[in-house]
């Protein structure tokens, strides 16, 4: 599905550069031993700007829930609606979730609790890659 291309800024560029290298990195505070996503300049828990780093995760996850979007205001997604939007819990980053269109999964046939594996998709406008997930059986 042709998504909008995320525009990296100075702060989150490492995340998007990693995606272009087919790697998923998340913000991790070494002091709190806690992942944080979306990334922010400081750790939400301890407030430090110094104790965190970008840490790679394998991206394997579980489908927490989903909704099927039939009427979106996002212009580039309108030709493809209805489409699944699943919430993925990441195994290696407790508390962190991300969204996925679950490429290859039929509409409204989303198994909550199923395992998904990370992949990357190229977005058309700028070529920026974004993380996606597919059911492990596919």
């Amino acid at each position, binding site marked *: 599905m042709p*998504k*909008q*291309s*995320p*525009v990296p*800024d100075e702060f989150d560029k490492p995340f998007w550069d990693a995606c272009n290298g087919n790697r998923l990195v998340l913000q991790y505070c070494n002091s709190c031993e806690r992942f944080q*996503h*979306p990334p922010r300049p400081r750790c*939400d828990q301890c407030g430090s700007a110094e104790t965190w780093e970008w840490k790679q995760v394998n991206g394997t996850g579980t489908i*927490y*829930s*989903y*909704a*099927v*979007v*039939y*009427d*979106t*205001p*996002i*212009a*580039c*997604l309108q030709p493809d609606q*209805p489409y699944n*939007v699943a*919430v993925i819990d990441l195994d290696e980053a407790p*508390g*962190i*979730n*991300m*969204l*996925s*269109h679950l490429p290859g999964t039929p509409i*409204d046939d989303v198994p*909550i609790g199923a395992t998904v594996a990370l992949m990357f998709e190229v977005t*058309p*406008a*700028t070529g920026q890659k974004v993380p996606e997930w597919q059911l492990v059986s596919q």
Partner: protein
Amino acid sequence: MTYRTQMAYRTVPSASMYRTKEGLGIWEHRGKVAAVGIGHSPTLRRWDARPETSIGAWSILALRRAMDDAGVTPGQVDGLVLAPDTTTGSHWPPDQPIPQDFIDAFEQTDDRFDGLSKLSAEWILKNMPELTNVRFVMVAPVCMSMTLAAAIQAVGDGHATVCLALRGWHNLGGRYFQGGANAEPTVSGPGKWGLSLAGPSSYATAMQFQRYLHKYNKTHDMMAPFIINSRRNGLLFPEGYWAQHHPEPLTTADYLKSRWIAKPANLLDNDMPIHAAAAYVITTSERAKDMKQTPVYVLGHAGAGTVNGDSHSAVAGRSVVRTLEEAEEHAASTGRKIFEAAGIKPGDLDFENMYDGFSPLHVFHIEGIGFAGIKRGEALDLFQTDISIAGPNPVSPSGGNIGGGRTRYWGHTDSIQQIQGRAGARQIRVRAEIGVSGGNMPQWSNFIVWSSTPG
């Protein structure tokens, strides 16, 4: 004499007015503040471009009606609290000129959208010269629930004695959120982490509700009695949109065949934007004795949020989207705060008018307060029983946003009217002595507990 020297008022950030933490004990002004007047404008689906129906004009109308309802003269009003943003999704097109007849009809401020697609206290006071004694002004975010809670606290704290609380919602042509950044091939800012993949503002609630249905083994169809009940009650609200424009009942079949927006939320699970304004008069319980209507006392107020200096905002989510568990915990924590502030137990509530802008939110809210004794996962079972105004457990007797259109204030009006015995055809048959109203999201809310007595 210019406006600015004619009237001088002080202002206080509304953030300092809200109770967002547990453990604060009973509200310090319990029973000492009361609602005494209600004023509503008519409703429209969208503004019809006439100056006299602009949101500024209708806000003035609502304020005048509220004062008249309370029996206060404009000169007796010394406080004004309002929400300046009169929309969350309908914006004046940047290249569209402001209509000349609107400019000619009203005193303007430096903001050309004032009175048209936003609202300032300055605009109100410039165009209501009869408000000669306003000495206190406060700006609240987002909704009537924030505005009312702030006005109530302000009166309790002694910032004002007769305080107007105002909320207007404008609605222009077109649909929310179309075009602009959503039509671009790229995305910057927070949207790049999630919303860009989803789209509709109902997505997060719909996803939470999908998890709810999975977790508690329920079905979307079980929402039908709640939606039908809400529209039925809304049709008994003369001030509401459907009562005024489309007074036809909604059937279960209508609901079940309604098109999906973000399944499991269909079109009728989403509140419909309309153009309308409402106002309330809040005063001390002492002053309330001399006013026209039966006073409705405030036992307490509380909600979810984060106060940081002058800022009041939602409790931050853990990650990209808030989970069902986060929503449930916020609702439960708010329930504890509400009862703590008001000094009552869940079983003391006779009715509830909690938020329903996306219908599943009502589920989360009433489970959070344990209305009618329900626990988590049981709201849809409650909906299969008699939840009507004639029954033992009246759910949303106002009809809420689902029944009246997107204003987030029907519940406040109805709660006050129920306790006063002037809810008309909506009057609940059980005792109406203590009720709760408010919203909006589990993570950002304010609720008010109303009572027929000071407690």
